[in-house]
């Protein structure tokens, strides 16, 4: 594709070995008309400044590595055409995350949240392989299928105004994932997850800004999941009042 002239890419830099606080650095990049933002970063790394650090791998919007803020919006940089921006493009690390270096953010806190919602099939009695696959109708599959599309890119956490104010909030992707298992006809662990959803920082911390769904590159609609989970969690609570469960309340 033809060259599309030059753009100035303004990138946030931070190296804890030498920088007290993050700084910005500008690069002049000759861009091609079919480039994504990631292509410009790769050009910078290969041709101008090899010390620029960022994560990327699949460059087809499915591995979820390359989330960053582009002109203030959370984006997968491999799926964000440069052509839609003007002459200057500002690239900063994902908002609402501690920054390890340059555009690399802390991921551990996110994975702790994912693990907290028990994202696996819970059954009173596990099935043996010899019993063959469990039947699940296309409609039952459709009940949760959208919420199973999350690639863990964490853009939703960067867009959510609650995440940055309420550090215990489970957040959109983790709740959507828990909800995905709750809706799965093969799962029997919804009451365990609803209990987690009702804890402090659970689903009721959400104020329905809906920003998570706006920025989601995979149309998971985590806001729908979180707010469906609010309904589910309260129904589960009410059910617990009428039919008390043994053990923990």
């Amino acid at each position, binding site marked *: *594709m*033809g060259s599309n002239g030059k753009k100035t890419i303004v990138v946030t830099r931070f*190296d804890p*070995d*030498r920088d007290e606080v993050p700084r910005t650095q500008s690069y002049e990049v000759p861009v091609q008309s*079919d480039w994504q933002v990631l292509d410009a970063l790769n050009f910078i*790394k*290969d*041709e101008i*400044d*090899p*010390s620029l*650090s*960022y*994560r*990327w*791998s*699949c*460059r*087809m*919007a*499915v*591995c*979820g*590595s390359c989330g960053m803020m582009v002109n203030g919006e959370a984006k997968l940089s491999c*799926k964000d055409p440069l052509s839609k921006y003007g002459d200057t493009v500002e690239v900063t690390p994902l908002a609402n995350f501690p920054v*390890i*270096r*340059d555009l*690399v953010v802390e*991921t551990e806190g996110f994975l702790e949240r*994912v*693990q907290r919602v028990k*994202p*696996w*099939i819970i059954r009173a009695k*596990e*099935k043996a*392989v010899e019993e*063959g*696959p*469990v*039947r*699940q*109708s*296309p409609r*039952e*599959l459709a009940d*949760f*299928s959208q919420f*199973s*599309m*999350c*690639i*863990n890119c964490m853009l939703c956490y960067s867009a959510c105004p609650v995440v940055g104010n309420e550090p215990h909030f489970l957040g959109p992707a983790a709740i959507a*994932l828990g909800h995905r*298992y709750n809706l*799965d006809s*093969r*799962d029997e662990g919804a009451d365990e997850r609803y209990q987690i959803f009702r804890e402090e920082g659970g689903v009721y911390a959400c104020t329905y800004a809906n920003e998570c769904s706006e920025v989601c590159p995979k149309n998971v609609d985590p806001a729908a999941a979180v707010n469906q989970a609010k309904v589910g969690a309260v129904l589960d609570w009410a059910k617990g009042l009428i039919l008390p469960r043994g053990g923990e309340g």
Partner: protein
Amino acid sequence: MTEVLRHDIVIVGGGAAGLRAAIAAVEADPDVSVALVSKVYPMRSHTVSAEGGAAAVDRDDDSFELHGYDTVKGSDFLGDQDVIQYFVQEAPKELTRLEHWGCPWSRNEDGSIATRAFGGMTTKRTWFAADKVGFHMLHTLFQHSMRFDRIVRYDEQFVTKLIVDGGAVRGVSALDIREGVSRAILGRAVILATGGAGICFPFTTNGNIKTGDGMALAYRAGVPLKDMEFVQYHPTGLPGTGILVTEATRGEGGRLFNRKGERFLENAAYGVGSKLELGPRDMISRAVDQEIRAGNGFEGPHGQYLHLDLTHLGRKLLETRLPFVLELCRTYVGVDPVTQPIPIRPVVHYMMGGIDTDIDGATEMPGLYAAGECGNHSLNGANRLGSNSLTECLVFGARAAIHALCFAKGVEAGSESVARQQTEEEAARIASLRGQRKGGESLARTRSQMQEVMEEGLGVYRNQDGMRVAVEKLAQIKERAADIRLEDTSTVFNTELTAYLELVNMLDVAEVAALSGLARRESRGAHACSDFPERNDREYLHHSLVRFDDRRPRVEKKAVTLGRWEPEARKY
């Protein structure tokens, strides 16, 4: 002082094979402690990009025998038939297990598993979850693995060396990418599951992390790599980026056309017979390549391409079964497959070759196992059938874990002082690389040179001269690589350093592939030599091994295990 961590099993790589191995180990033994070491977070592993499906016999009109025969024939008779037989029998169990763990397989109306057609397969036996099968499998495995606290994850840790003592592997030295320190992770057995090496080539479906690290680790420790000349070109990649357009497009009825509007696979010379678009990948890639060479391609900004037409399949089918293909085509080439044909050209997709293992995943080195794309159990031979590799990761990931576990029970843990000493040497070597200033070579340019050499020498078609040139040039590039200038002196998340380590790994793998290719003076499967166009069973019905011996690569042979199917002409 260098930290030494102790586990029973160390698994390197967090994709489908590594995760499956980790789960198999902790399920089989309630006391085992597993280290899962990955240079990325597991859900970023390249399994995530697989689209079309995973093969396993499920339908009434199918049988293990048919799946076995299809795989043997697809391999151009270079697959070991005992391995293939084991594989086809275990395949349905493994995919069922994944179903029980929550994988959202697509369904028939009655709730049973839906299957689709795939290239080289006699009947519909490819299980799928729309066209994001690798993504769903990987996330299902990763999420399921979170149940087990005995799987200890070491994420974003780059393994730079196998710790070998007394001829056996005792663990790994891993560079913590974030901290910049090296640690020894001791294990009684080590399973390598680091995937392929597509980034050796400039135009590939593979993600940037697929740099043959595990292959290079084993190779440098003296374990041979097998059948590395067999590089799978996928017929349908998007021009420019090389993004994969799944074979499932053809499984669902997609057709290939050239510029003249001909469905060129009907040409008998291409050998796919009545299978047409459902022929095996090696043949279709050759057909596409020949059409382009014959001037029957369309001219585009990224070179010549052909058309993959899905427009007759209808919006509803495309949206339910191939939504990711729609998204990728719309995003990356501005084409809507509902109404327009997709531009495609062959693209490097998969390494049939890998670390030489037996059916248990065991390598020559005691305690060292391999699984997934980085290993070579001789399942895929000279050409892998689409949708066999995801299943392979599960079947042989699990098997490697069980055998590694048995091995681990019978040996003492490695010596802490040896591990520490070897890791300290690694740490010193890595420290000297940061900001290395001895030469002026550019990392990015050296990588591009290697990629160009590989594309020229080991394309869809190869020849002796081309491969000889590739071997020579790779040797020169390897020498120059020692003089690469590294700018980044930071200890924290130094991706220039890891890119350099990856390049060194790729150069080893690339050299082995070129040497293997040069030694195979025949055409078999994906290794199509224009100067030796026929298969030669008399001289070359054997695996190629390349061993790093006395600091030099040495090419050897290894027998193929035949069985009920004798080699015959490969006609479809």
